[in-house]
């Protein structure tokens, strides 16, 4: 085996990717793991190896601390681990193209597990492009990786577990909170409670969430409930923030930093580029890849594990990674079908347990309708600076879909390739044409998945070998 060839390619070194690698190695597969971060852990355990050796670990909580053992097991498992590597194309067969330190190259594998995780749901509102507006996830990464907190008391707007967790961590680190604009709409708890019985096995998680909420209430900063609309203002940077609640209560406050969060959605660019079928997940308001019970997509030997398969959190990501790896081992003859099935059984139990509370959380923290219907002056496409008003005007001229409007307006053509505007575009088109959003579709995703320079392409230097590629297994 040359170093450009392995049985299995895993994309992403978060909880799912690491678990898949450990399981696959245990079954005797050769494994390559590529990840765009400098160290293993994914977003949840960012910088865990560095932070675990410092007293800072104490204020980040038990769930973060748990990543240290996982990273150690992953390091020891014998997978070929390539950090700082950007994947920009996978061809059937499989040949994957990567860039590392400005050098592009290709590698081959017989099966692929995409463990590319989730991204925060884009939250467009007027002024969200101003310096000083960041996501809550971004601020948490700054705390984990750079031990940095907002200089002045920070405003936080959004809903979901992450803002509560970050605010708890921020206070423990000595940061200050100016106020929390809770965007959970009125009446959500009632709607969510019908999902509670199946989540009763997760009382510990509920208790944790409740204890965060109580501690934050005791901290004494203002908490404004049912915030529906946001507007960030400033010349060249955030200076003030205007909000309006569902009841019409308005406020304007000075702000240097505003952190926003409305949940997370799977990263689906890689599966879409590979032609994997996706379907609309009504409970999570996003597309998810269509997967069998092993995590295999509609494309043979392409698997998706972790939050990329649908949001389930790290505890669901790990068994999903293990289950996919067992299937790959069986496919490649390292393990009998029956043995794979038995080995997967405890993983499936873990997965079911990890997902038990999810429908309750999905219902409680479903994004408010305004997230999908921003005011006309809002920049929907941050890269190409296309407003909601422009998209709405185009959406009623004929019956164009997202790809046609992209061609007309350039929305979705910038460097982020629609990662920030895709869902907003779909909802604006659906609303303007009075169609269900899942009928409108999504941008067509093409390689490269990340911008690549001509210099990087030239550095491939293996055009001859591309013509001698072996036929698909």
């Amino acid at each position, binding site marked *: 085996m040359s170093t450009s060839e392995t049985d299995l390619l895993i994309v992403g070194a978060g909880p799912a990717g690491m678990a898949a690698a450990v399981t696959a190695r245990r079954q005797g597969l050769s494994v390559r793991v590529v990840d765009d971060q*400098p160290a293993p852990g994914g977003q949840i355990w960012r910088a865990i190896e560095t932070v675990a050796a410092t007293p800072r670990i104490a204020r980040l909580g038990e769930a973060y601390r748990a990543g240290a053992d996982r990273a150690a097991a992953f390091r020891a498992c014998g997978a070929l681990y390539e950090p700082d590597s950007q994947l920009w194309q996978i061809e059937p067969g499989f040949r994957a193209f990567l860039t590392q330190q400005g050098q592009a190259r290709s590698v081959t594998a017989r099966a692929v597990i995409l463990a590319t995780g989730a*991204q925060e749901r884009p939250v467009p509102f007027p002024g969200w492009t101003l310096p000083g507006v960041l996501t809550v996830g971004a601020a948490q990464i700054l705390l984990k990786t*750079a031990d940095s907190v907002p200089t002045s008391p920070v405003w936080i707007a959004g809903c979901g577990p992450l803002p509560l967790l970050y605010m708890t961590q921020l206070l423990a680190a000595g940061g200050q909170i100016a106020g929390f604009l809770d965007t959970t709409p009125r009446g959500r708890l009632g709607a969510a409670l019908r999902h509670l019985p199946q989540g009763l096995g997760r009382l510990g998680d509920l208790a944790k969430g409740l204890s965060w909420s109580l501690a934050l209430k005791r901290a004494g900063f203002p908490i404004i409930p049912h915030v529906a609309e946001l507007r960030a203002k400033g010349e060249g940077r955030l200076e003030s923030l205007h909000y309006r609640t569902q009841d019409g209560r308005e406020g304007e406050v000075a702000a240097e930093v505003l952190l926003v969060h409305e949940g997370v959605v799977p990263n689906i660019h890689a599966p879409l580029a590979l032609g994997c079928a996706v379907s609309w997940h009504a409970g999570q308001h996003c597309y998810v890849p269509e997967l069998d019970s092993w995590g295999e997509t509609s494309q043979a030997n392409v698997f998706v594990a972790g939050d990329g398969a649908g949001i389930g959190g790290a505890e669901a990501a790990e068994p999903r990674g293990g289950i996919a790896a067992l299937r790959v081992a069986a496919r490649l003859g390292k393990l009998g079908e029956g043995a794979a099935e038995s080995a997967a059984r405890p993983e499936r139990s873990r997965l079911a347990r990890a997902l038990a509370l999810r429908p309750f959380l999905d219902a409680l923290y479903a994004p408010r309708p305004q997230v999908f219907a921003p005011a006309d002056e809002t920049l929907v496409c*941050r890269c190409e600076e296309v407003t909601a008003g422009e998209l709405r005007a185009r959406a009623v001229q004929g019956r164009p879909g997202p790809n046609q409007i992209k061609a007309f307006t350039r929305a979705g053509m910038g460097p*982020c390739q629609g990662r920030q505007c895709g869902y907003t575009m779909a909802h604006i088109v659906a609303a303007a044409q009075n169609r269900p959003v899942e009928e409108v579709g999504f941008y067509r995703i093409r390689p490269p998945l990340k911008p690549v320079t001509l210099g990087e392409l030239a550095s491939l230097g293996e055009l001859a070998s591309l013509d001698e590629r072996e036929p698909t297994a």
Partner: protein
Amino acid sequence: MFRKLHDPGAQTVTIFIDGRPVPAEAGESVAAVLLRQPEAWCRTTPISESPRAPYCMTGVCFECLVEVDGLASVQGCLTPVRNGMRVARQQGPRSLSA
């Protein structure tokens, strides 16, 4: 906009932002260092030339594009600092002659 809670001590490196020396901690990202500067923006957009700063810190928004050691449009949040690294804020559209 942001401040660092600990003194990196022996882990301190120096990078240059638009030619000005700035302390940083080995291993943290260029974007994290930019967010601690008095001028916390990192580029102006090619369309309206309005200032932008790091937004997602996970590599998906591409707001933190900067020039690093002469290479343009590098994602600052995915780039760990190195001693002596030269970072330049990007202004407007890239010039074809660059």
